[in-house]
């Protein structure tokens, strides 16, 4: 048993930290939608270092790096508040590598690897949130193209992305998860229309209306009607870099510093709450490491990842709520960190799989309990 990382891994971590020093004030983790040009430039700089394709196979321009290296990279990026891991280099690229054709590899992987091409996942719909298998956006095959009609919603960052990674129905309307396909859709294609929904953290989510959007068949990734398995696989690839503990550790550090600045460091109640939150943060770190450990052993990590998601997101909220409670009116001032964290963390238990769904995963797959009720 060993909780520490090796020398080579630590050396890489320090390289990452040195790189991130230039992005200290970026705050792209919370403000990507407002500072996208700088975030994109950072991704391109990371692309130059090969960091966006760290764990890709060498034949696709990757470094075959370990799960630990990937974890360290994105944990540091999260801790630095620089960005969230880009979906293009993760879910999209991994699926392309595994299921794409040689032509697709040649076309899409290089610009993803270099940080020039970015994707928005277009999964959820007004009537299909946690229950994706009920989605209705339809792609009708007409010769060598699909004609897509439907409405997607809650797409983060779509306003700045180049392509949609679109999950849509090619099977019958009752086919649930068995009739879905994945298409790459140019976000500037005729018939694609974005509507912003500003969110409480100062960012926005997007609604994507697709009206008779024509998508070449060669933009379909994987078999027709076969997307469900691909999606699950892709999700499984990313478990160790989603919800990195560095984000929560940074929350605690910022809040502890802020509380001290407010002159509350000697209040016994504040001291005790911060100690309890420190325990919670270390619990979250353990969940993150448990996911990593399972991943690097090639285990599915389904339960560990669900537990990590719940703990991570709940603790984000606990920290923010506690600090706003402790600090009184000063924590209400716009622009102070507690206020932002309180707003932003409300999203964490919803986005990326709700806590309700994740607890169900732990109950079913971890404890052998039954249904979804």
């Amino acid at each position, binding site marked *: 048993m060993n909780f520490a990382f090796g020398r080579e891994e630590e050396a890489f971590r320090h390289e990452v930290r040195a790189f991130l020093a230039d992005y200290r004030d970026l705050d792209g983790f919370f403000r990507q939608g407002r500072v996208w040009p700088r975030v994109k430039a950072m991704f391109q700089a990371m692309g130059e270092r090969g960091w966006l394709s760290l764990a890709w196979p060498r034949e696709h321009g990757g470094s075959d790096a370990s799960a630990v290296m990937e974890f360290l990279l994105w944990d540091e990026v999260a801790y630095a508040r620089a960005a969230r891991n880009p979906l293009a280099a993760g879910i999209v690229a991994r699926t392309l590598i595994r299921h794409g054709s040689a032509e697709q590899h040649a076309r899409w992987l290089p610009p993803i690897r270099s940080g020039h091409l970015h994707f928005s996942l277009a999964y959820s719909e007004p009537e299909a949130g946690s229950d994706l298998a*009920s989605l209705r956006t339809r792609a009708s095959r007409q010769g060598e193209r699909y004609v897509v009609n439907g409405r997607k919603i809650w797409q983060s960052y779509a306003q700045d992305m180049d392509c949609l990674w679109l999950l849509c129905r090619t099977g019958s309307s009752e086919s649930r998860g068995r009739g879905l396909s994945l298409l790459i859709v140019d976000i500037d294609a005729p018939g694609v229309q974005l509507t912003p929904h500003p969110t409480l953290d100062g960012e926005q989510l997007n609604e994507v209306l697709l009206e008779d959007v024509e998508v070449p068949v060669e933009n379909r990734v994987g078999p027709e009607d076969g997307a469900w398995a691909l999606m699950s696989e892709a999700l499984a690839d990313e478990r160790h870099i989603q919800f990195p503990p560095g984000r929560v550790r940074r929350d605690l550090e910022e809040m502890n510093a802020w509380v001290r600045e407010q002159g509350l460091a000697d209040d016994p109640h504040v001291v005790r709450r911060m100690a309890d939150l420190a325990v919670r943060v270390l619990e979250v770190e353990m969940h993150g490491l448990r996911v990593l450990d399972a991943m690097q052993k090639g285990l599915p990590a389904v339960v560990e990842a669900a537990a990590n998601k719940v703990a991570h997101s709940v603790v984000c909220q606990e920290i923010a709520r506690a600090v706003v409670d402790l600090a009184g009116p000063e924590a209400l001032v*716009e*622009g102070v960190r507690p206020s932002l964290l309180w707003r932003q963390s*409300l999203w964490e238990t919803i986005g990326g799989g*709700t806590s309700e769904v994740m607890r169900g995963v732990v109950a079913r797959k971890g404890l052998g309990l039954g249904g979804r009720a």
Partner: protein
Amino acid sequence: MSFDVSSDPPVDLPFDLAFDPGQQAIADAVARFCADRFDDDAVKQSTGAVPRDAWQELAGLGVLGVLTPEGEGGLLEAVAAMEALGRAVFPGPLAATFLATRVLADPERSRVAGGSVLVSVGSAGLWPFAEQAGVVLEIDDESVRRVHFASAPTPVDTLGGETWGRAPVVRDADLPDAAAGLVVYRTLLAAQLAAMGRRLVDDASAHAAVRKQFGRPIGDFQAVAHPLADCAMRLDAAATLARAAACYRDAGADAPSRRYAAAAHVSACQAGLDAAHVCHQVFGAVGITLEGPVFHVSRRIRQLASTAPGPDASRRVLTSCMNGEAAQ
């Protein structure tokens, strides 16, 4: 220690937790006013400054002056109004205004009750609605003090969407009747918070009853239904505590009114915040958009729950009640 109702002077009325017809009429009138003149869209747009027109109209209904001698009302009448205002998420320094009408004298009291002078109640240099306020009251421990700004306040945007201000103050005079004033303030904050929370819970329940996922309404899932039930229970308890505080205040029972007001305040802050968190969760993504049905309420709950004097001051009141009375 004793929280024993029976140690309080008995009032020979029948036990009854419903508003009397006059109180209910106030609640109904305020609810109608809000529905007609200040609906949800108006509430969402009302961040920033106090909407003076609506404020003036509310004063015109006699609502803000209910605690003045001319208003001839008691704290229960103010609670009845505040429950309706909270449910409608009506903006502005409501509890502060009622406090001022309790501790100020005429002619200022009438101006505050008439809606022409706005009140800022705060402490430690951060003042709600500072630029618009004509009366500034500082709460310091359990006293209420008249102060004025030493220099023009610097505007500060807040989480609740209200524009507050930062300024040093010059202290004028401690006001008499601070204890009764703070009972008014805490009770009405509690009534407002509990009503806002209950509004959210009812909206979220209505949503959960029709929103389907996995083939059935999400309200069928205990992971959705039970947290909403817990919120409703706690909010009802908080609202009832506020009513109890008002009832004892109006009966002239100082000690119990102080105790119940403090408990109502702590209870409503916690229950309101819990409701905000749960309802964001129940509404999912739509609940975190600015245009959605939750944030314009939850941000005000968060703001009111942090407004000075916060729940910690009320906890101190409860501690002194508990252990002071234990020594008797």
